[in-house]
């Protein structure tokens, strides 16, 4: 079963026309049962695209470069690098084939989308604060803490996570 979660301190912003387009697709249930959300719309055609296997350092360098170019502060660029690295680390832990990273930005935000063939079966994964005694489970939690908005979509074909960071005005 596919599910799609979305979270963030700010209200979801409709990003026309892509968001409108997505509304015509089959909606899926939200994990918290709070209504229906459309599945993730397609990444813009002009997004930067990278595949990765184990070279997370290269991925971090790419994300940092684009974050600064997009206009994030150094502090937030460091945050985005950590968030992307945590998601990509999950690919190495759980997926059987390479992951892909797409990056795009406009005047409002920078978005990093990570896709791999791993499946997240718990819709609330990363939403509860793990104990420091726990030997894992901090990765996704950190991602939710850091990013302005996180969209997560997982089904039998894999998992797509979209990390949004607002750009300073």
């Amino acid at each position, binding site marked *: 079963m596919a599910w799609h979660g979305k979270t963030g301190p700010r209200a979801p912003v409709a990003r026309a026309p892509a968001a409108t387009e997505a509304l015509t697709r089959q909606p899926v249930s939200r994990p918290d049962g709070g209504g229906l959300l459309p599945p993730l719309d397609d990444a813009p055609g002009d997004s930067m695209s990278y595949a990765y296997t184990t070279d*997370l350092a290269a991925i971090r360098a790419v994300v940092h470069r684009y974050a600064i170019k997009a206009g994030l502060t150094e502090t937030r660029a*460091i945050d985005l690098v950590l968030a992307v690295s*945590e998601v990509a680390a999950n690919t190495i832990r759980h997926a059987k084939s390479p992951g892909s990273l797409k990056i795009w930005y406009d005047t409002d935000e920078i978005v990093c989308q990570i896709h791999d063939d791993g499946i997240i079966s718990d819709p609330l994964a990363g939403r509860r604060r793990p104990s420091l005694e726990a030997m894992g489970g901090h990765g996704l939690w950190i991602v939710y803490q850091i990013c302005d908005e996180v969209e997560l979509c997982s089904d039998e074909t894999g998992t797509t996570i979209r990390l949004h960071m607002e750009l300073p005005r």
Partner: protein
Amino acid sequence: MWYNKCVDLLTVSVTARESAGEPYTLVEIAGEADVTNTDELRRLLDEEVSQEPRTMIIDLSGLRFMDSSALHALLRVNRSLDRQGGVLALVAPQAAVAKILRLTTADRLIPVFDSVAEAAAG
């Protein structure tokens, strides 16, 4: 574009030191620590923990990046030393490392100092 270049990103060096007659183990971790080299990091740290030092100081000043799996390696050292009656201190984390320590509140569990001298004295 494909990336599959594997670089040895992590350097760990260990020295036995002394401060006011008290011995301590200084571990310097430099480079980038993530899931791809955590096993190696854990193995090296375990080796030092097995020597049962009373004080272990980990100098993070050369570490540009640390992810949650590397953080768990440090938490594991802290737990093991604690059980053995030893103490762990961290020194001079860079911005990215300080962020994950603060976010996870690991910096409230493990003392963080500005310099090795301060940690050795503390």
